[in-house]
């Protein structure tokens, strides 16, 4: 049989044959805290091996007012002495002249003189009473109790009675006086073995220690076998841990990128500072188009000028703008300026990258390209606009590119992005024809939202680039997608992130 170490120690001490013991005594003998011994005793009683005898008693000590009279007599005792010296009576007002009491203290003593029948008032005179103690009489019970509790002593009724102090009478007298005596109820716990306990001891029992931390020492010396590992409340909360994490928006960008790569696309890029030629002219945007205004587009002061590609390509684009240039189009019917095409802008869309890819593309071969990156618009900052945001653009060059395959591609793309319900409606974009607007069904909102445009590049765009096959194109802004994914109120929350959001936003969302 094994018991926890403390319980075993208590049991063994009681088994030493010296009979039942008080808890403080046991604690003293075992060198343990009283609370530890108490807990062990309670556990042992539960097991039926000890019994605990509880005895209640009063414990006395002097209050702050009572402690004053350890060194000096009670005021009524002083007054009695004065009366006796004055021949049995004295004018009340003259009493202070014969002792150390002042008029107030004499006045207060009258209540006690009267009660004890030590003196009484007759007119102005104070006269010694019948009950007054004689000169040879010893101290009264209350006086004895005060003396016995001198020196801040704390004592039980039993102890004081054993010393001959008339505790009950003294306490009764002092009870009426404020702050003279403090009485507390105490319980003594006397612990003794039961028959079962004796039986257990005779059968032999061992003690085990309880420990919190399993230490290298306990493991090294095998000591862990003799101790009990204290159980924990495993339901308590632990401290918060935050793994280092990628930004939530990065996770949106990664998902888009993965979808394109899985669909067999080649990743491309293009410079932030871009010639107007690639950002606008190559996409058949006329040079007086409002999108090219200083109002909407950031023009670049440094560097001041971009180079244009080979003359043949530039001439093709120029001709297409002016009169269609053999593409079958009427063109825009104006004089195209080469100078404006040189002007550097911060690219306004990632389509600048896909049109560059188209210019590099070998005619007649299939091709799939995508780009993810920042684009720049001259927008005033508000909760949904910043002058920089991210776009993704994808194009497919293919002999079988058609509006029907565009719809199929968009459905596949958005399904992989997590939006199984997709519809497309007619729309208008300057460099695609036919054009289509994509609508996604959001389970979270139980509603359709517009998400990006798409279409087939106009012949005025593809033919000057030397591409005869049709080209599917689509794109979307990624901040809006991220704001919906992460329930953000403002686009700024992405780029001015707070630590709580970076730390708490989980990597996975259900």
């Amino acid at each position, binding site marked *: 049989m094994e018991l926890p170490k403390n319980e075993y120690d208590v049991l063994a001490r009681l088994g030493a044959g010296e009979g039942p013991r008080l808890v403080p005594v046991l604690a003293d003998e075992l060198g343990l805290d009283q609370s530890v011994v108490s807990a062990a005793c309670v556990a042992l009683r539960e097991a039926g091996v000890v019994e605990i005898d509880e005895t209640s008693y009063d414990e006395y000590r002097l209050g702050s007012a009572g402690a004053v009279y350890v060194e000096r007599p009670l005021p009524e005792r002083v007054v009695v002495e004065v009366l006796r010296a004055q021949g049995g009576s004295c004018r009340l007002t003259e009493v202070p002249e014969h002792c150390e009491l002042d008029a107030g203290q004499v006045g207060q003593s009258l209540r006690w003189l009267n009660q004890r029948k030590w003196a009484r008032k007759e007119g102005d005179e104070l006269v010694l009473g019948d009950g007054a103690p004689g000169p040879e009489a010893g101290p009264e019970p209350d006086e004895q109790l005060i003396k016995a509790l001198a020196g801040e002593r704390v004592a039980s009724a039993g102890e004081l009675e054993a010393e001959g102090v008339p505790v009950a009478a003294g306490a009764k007298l002092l009870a009426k006086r404020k702050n003279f005596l403090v009485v507390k109820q105490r319980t003594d716990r006397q612990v003794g073995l039961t028959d079962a306990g004796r039986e257990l001891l005779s059968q032999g029992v061992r003690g085990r220690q309880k420990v919190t931390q399993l230490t290298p020492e306990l493991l090294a010396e095998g000591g862990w076998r003799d101790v009990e590992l204290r159980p924990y409340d495993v339901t308590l909360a632990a401290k918060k841990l935050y*793994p*280092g994490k990628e*930004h939530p*928006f*990065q996770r949106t960008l990664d998902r888009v*990128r993965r979808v394109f790569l899985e*669909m067999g*696309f*080649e990743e*491309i*890029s*293009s*410079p*932030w*500072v871009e*010639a107007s030629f690639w950002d606008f002219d190559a996409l058949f945007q006329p040079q*007086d188009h409002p999108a090219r205004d*200083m109002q909407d587009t*950031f*023009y*670049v*002061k440094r*560097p001041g*000028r971009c180079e244009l590609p080979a003359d043949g390509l530039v001439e093709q684009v120029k001709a297409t703008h002016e009169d*269609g240039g053999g*593409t079958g*189009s009427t*063109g825009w019917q104006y004089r195209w300026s080469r100078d404006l095409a040189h002007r550097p802008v911060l690219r306004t869309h990632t389509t600048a*990258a896909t049109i560059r890819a188209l210019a*590099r593309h070998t005619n007649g*071969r*299939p*091709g*799939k390209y995508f780009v993810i990156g920042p684009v720049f618009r001259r*927008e*005033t900052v508000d909760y949904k606009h910043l002058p*920089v945001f991210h776009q993704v653009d994808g194009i497919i060059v*293919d002999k079988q590119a*058609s*509006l*029907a*395959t565009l719809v*199929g*591609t968009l459905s596949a793309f958005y399904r992989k992005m997590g939006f199984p319900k997709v519809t*497309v*409606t*007619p*729309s*208008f974009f300057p460099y695609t024809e*036919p054009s*289509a607007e994509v609508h996604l069904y959001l389970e979270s909102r139980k509603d359709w939202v517009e998400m990006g445009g798409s279409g087939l590049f*106009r*012949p*005025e765009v593809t033919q000057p680039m030397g591409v005869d096959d*049709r080209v*599917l194109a689509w794109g979307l802004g990624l901040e809006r997608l991220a704001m919906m994914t992460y329930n953000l109120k403002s686009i700024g929350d*992405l780029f*001015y992130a707070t*630590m709580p959001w*970076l730390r708490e936003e989980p990597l996975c969302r259900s």
Partner: protein
Amino acid sequence: MPIIDMPVDALLGRIGRGAGAAPVSADDLRTLLPRLGCELDELAEMQEFLCKVCGKIYDRTEAQGPPLLCANCGADFRAFPEELEDRGTNRVLRLDMLAVRPDIFDPGGMARYVRGFLGLQTGLPEYVINAPRITVEVDPQLGDDDSYRPHIACAVVRNVQLDSNTIKMVMNLQEDLHWALGRDRKLASIGVYDLDTLKGDKFHYDAVEPNGLRFVPLGFSPDDPDAEMTPAEILERHKTGQAYAHLLKPMSKYPLLRDGEGTVLSMPPIINSESTRVKMETTQFFVDVTGMSQRTVDRALNIIVTSLKEIMPAVQVESVIIESAGGTRMTPDLTPAEMTLDVREAAETIGIDVNAAQLAELLESMGHGVEEAGHADRLTVLVPAYRNDVMHPIDLIEDAAIAYGYENLKAELVPTFTVGSPQEIEERSATARRVLTGLGFHQVMTLVLTSGPAAFEKWRIEADERAVQIDNPISVEQTICRVSLLPGLLETLAINKQYDLPQYLFEVGDCCFVDAERETGAREERLAAAALIGTHVGYADVRAVADAFVHEMGVKCVVQATEHNSYIPGRVAALCDEHGTRIGTMGEVHPEVLEAYGLKHPVSVLELSVEKLLGVVRSEGERMKAEG
């Protein structure tokens, strides 16, 4: 995209019903319009207000409230509230429209479009134009650079019967064309006048001196002694004149349209005269469009006269002779443009099986005429003169696709096999992010535009001439492209001062540098940066991060003491590759920089070039066509 308010009842009334078909309802329009490429914003109740000065009617949402100023005549309703009449509510469809189809901005044109789509009225609509009675003579000076507005097209519209609804439609039509085609009156502006106030059959479109004559502009009473103004005074004093003054101010002579007896009709593109304005009793219009582009001017007039005919079917349109230095012509000219469409090309582009007859039917339901096809593989299509957006047969193909219905297309993938390929720098950046998150850092993404004070002054360094500079910034906070990731990291620390320390942040992203070697004059470079803030953070911590990062990325670096004004002297190091080329910097940030960001704890940072560290070359923009 601008919002067009389409009055529901007027539209439904003009769509009507076909033989035996149920009438179209507002709810039908909700599902129908998106299929036609019109984004429906909402079906709304609008409050109608009338400008009692010029008769202009406004539809306003509750949120917009009453107009403060009349956009037409300049009346100030705040100063003179009695000039604005509240005329109760009506229902409108609020449509998000693009400028390419101004022919469907009014209930007349939109009803024509819907009737075609529903098959109620297909093929090229016919509009009769009566013979001209009025000639407009154009002053050749209007072709000069200092008074340039040479193009004019006019029409006469007789047998007009106006009520408050039609007058509103006419005014809105005019205004919508001003922004959609006219680029806010710059390329083309429109005037409509009461023909009964005009005299003679020879009108004059001239260039006049800014102070050459006086007339009473719209919105001023002829009884007012100050009402007569010179063109120059109108630009100074009249509300509308002030708003559009920028269109004429650079010129030395202003355009002016007058009748046979010298009565002023208007000073395009600013304002009409008061005496010629259209009133409820008006029964005949004179219409003019002037502008800088012949094509735009003609299209605008074509849209106006055909839409007026749709709005008020009883009107008679009559042409006007325009005599100019370039020759004599008659406007409006509603001759349709002819375009040849390859049937197979159309079917393949849409991805459907259609023959010539079926394709012709689709095009006719979009309002095009199709001539009897001689060849079964090609159609000759007649494009209505009010269409401004048909430049190429591809535009007809889109019309056919809309008529076919996008929702009826069979969605499929292109069957061609291709191999996906990532960019190396993106793959390497993903690894860099993985290393830094493994070291317990949180990624941030900060704005790539910044300013000189934020990028240099706060960091106690000279402005970097390699920074790309914006010519027309929209705010002082975003004037250059970033050349370092550190300002973004410290700004993020600054907004997170109240949260638990330590904080470890990083960013992997592009910075942009002017580079004369490049085709565009600049290039991006992929950088990585990390920042640590905490009570006991110091050089040793960031050095440990740098060592771990470089090791995990599979390369070696040499650390050398260096000097840098942004760091505490003696606590800053350069990271160099094995050849001694500097690829980055790390150290303890100077207290003055911390003060500039309001940071109360020490910060150590690291920044290096991922491209230089790994020797990755990015040259996407310059790859040549031959390779594929």
